[in-house]
């Protein structure tokens, strides 16, 4: 049981990260290869505050997320006015730089040997509550003015600009919101696992999050969460596949890209209304077929 609980908790932490990437990628159409670096900032900053400076957990967690957002602001600043490609490359460079800093500042971060000694304050129920809150926040953001502006500029940046949307500002808001969620997932991870090291937060992880988002549906939050569950928990259950599971994973995503370009769920969301519609349609469908 311990094992399944552990997998479930880690999956929920991933969901928070993926929800963060959802805001950035699925809503605003920007791709970052450095979101994992913000996860690292969340983990390390809260760790340093609690372990080295003896702060209580909650204020440390809040300050850590705040620090990530401030750093995120400076990373985002040169890129929001440029083509969206730049943000992926700049965040990539940022991730590399951050890894170097974590490795070098041994006194503060433990360097390559990693940072240990986190008190284990995070448990499954806390993560569950946090994940639910985060997902609700993202769902609200999607419906808010900024969320809709994000979707507008994702489709056509020039047109969005012409409609009077302040494109750099909206991009920045989406980016910072995403950074906050991702760094929160870092805080939770660190205080659940009680150990982090710089290799955990490479650009591959950021890339994987983007793939998860895509896999579920181009702009469906439900889909993103679902694929986070499938793609994190499933490989865990299929441990015996080891090397082959990555091939499997890649082939499936390539097939989806080629033949179901909207992702598994497209833009469909899990809302009471949609569920109702679904079952109604289904009934009609069965009636029709039985009538034949």
């Amino acid at each position, binding site marked *: *049981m311990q094992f399944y609980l552990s997998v479930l908790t880690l999956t929920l932490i991933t969901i928070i990260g993926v929800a963060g990437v959802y805001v950035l990628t699925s809503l605003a159409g920007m791709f970052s290869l450095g979101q994992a670096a913000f996860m690292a900032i969340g983990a390390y900053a809260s760790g340093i505050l609690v372990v080295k400076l003896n702060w209580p957990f909650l204020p440390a967690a809040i300050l850590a997320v705040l620090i990530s957002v401030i750093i995120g602001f400076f990373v985002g600043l040169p890129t929001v006015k440029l083509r969206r490609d730049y943000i992926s490359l700049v965040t990539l460079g940022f991730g590399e730089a951050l890894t170097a800093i974590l490795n070098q500042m041994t006194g503060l971060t433990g360097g*390559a040997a*990693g940072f240990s000694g986190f008190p284990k304050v995070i448990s499954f129920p806390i993560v569950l509550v946090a994940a639910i809150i985060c997902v609700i926040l993202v769902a609200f953001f999607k419906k808010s003015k900024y969320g809709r502006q994000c979707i507008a500029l994702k489709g056509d940046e020039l047109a969005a600009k012409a409609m009077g949307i302040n494109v750099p500002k909206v991009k920045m808001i989406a980016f910072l919101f995403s950074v906050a969620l991702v760094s929160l997932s870092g805080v939770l991870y660190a205080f659940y696992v009680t*150990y982090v090291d710089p290799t955990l937060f490479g650009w591959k992880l950021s890339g994987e999050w983007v793939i998860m988002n895509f896999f579920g549906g181009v702009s469906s939050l439900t889909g993103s969460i*679902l694929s986070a569950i499938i793609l994190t928990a499933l490989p865990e259950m299929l441990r015996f596949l080891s090397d082959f599971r990555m091939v499997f994973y890649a082939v499936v995503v390539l097939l989806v890209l080629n033949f179901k370009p909207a992702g598994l769920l497209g833009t469909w969301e*899990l809302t009471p209304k949609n569920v109702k519609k679904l079952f109604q349609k289904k009934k009609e469908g069965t009636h029709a077929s039985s009538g034949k």
Partner: protein
Amino acid sequence: MKKLWKTLLVLGVAFSLVACSGNKTETSEKKETETETTEKTETPETPETPEAPDTNGTASSGDTIKIGALQDITGKTATLGKMIQAGAQYAIDEINAAGGVNGKKLELITRDTTGDVTEAINAFTLLATQDGVSAIIGPPVANIGLAIAPLSEQYNVPILGFAIDTAVLQNKDGVTYKNMFLFQPSDDQQGAIMAKYAINELNSKKIGAIYRSDNAYSLGLVDGFKSYLSESGSDAKIVQEVQFTATDTDFSTMLMKLMNAGADVIYAPNYTQELITIAQQARAVGYTGPIIMGLDAAPPFASLAGAASNNVIYINNITESEPKVAEIMEKYKAETGADATNKFFLGYDVVNILADTITEVGEDSVAIRDAVEKLTGYEGLTGIISINPENHQPQGLEMYIHEIKDGQSVMIKQYSAE
């Protein structure tokens, strides 16, 4: 098609909601059993008892004694983990062929860490709870060891590992983790052995160090080396050090910096692959002096690096001049076509230690832990092993110093850190 997906989704979510609520109740149950175990720790308990509902099928009450191997089978450090596993399996086969332990056969259950901390934690949890193993043969990589060390406190399974970073054995306040053990010289000891050799045998005064700053193993060996230098009172010192990282390709610039500082010995405690590049580029830019390397320059390094490996000095857990080692190497080669490296013998020795312990105290994991803590004078192929009960490290364990001459490794001396 679309509808099918959505229906599946709705069903899935409904199912997971049910599963979640189910989980929650199980969590609270879980907590109760946990507190029970902590209360019961005074009386020895088999690890699977608190997990009884889960491990009914796999509990080691059967006719085999289960030993876990938490190793990197895939991922960056897989070459190390696979060797330990192979050595452990080899020893188990030998023991089982001779009739097993206490009338039972040994069984090795391997869980792959994939070289990733998160995966390693899941793998460890599986071994410690569901698999019902009596003891775990731990990983050779510090970061994995560091991640599972605090977690190991909540179970009653000893982990006999090889991560040489002593932080794997003690927490921040210097309290020894009850279940973590080290079965080869620590990084402090290995660094000290190499420093001792540089001063005493090479009469080195100016040492240049090249090491990877994003690798805990490399850093630990540098620290051990440095602290021996400063404590020894010798006038030898590190005149220049250069650090590199995973994505560096050009070592020649760094090596030239060492040469410019007048280094008469180069200290390079890095992984084999990096050592090949360093040796090649060092010889290419004209450095002909001795290069001191750690365990990683053990065979097959010399055959891989070719002529550049001459005048390389390295330490090893084993020596091929020991007949039993040579015999096993030959036999393993004949069976599998692969070469047994030093990690193979670490796994081999630990399984034999476990077999001896189980013969004495039985398969109960707490009893094994207590016995391993008091281990003294076990004569293994990797040296005479005595565990210090205070810090769970081997005490005064000797290593074999080798020099590569004309592509051949020659054993020079046996050294311990003391």
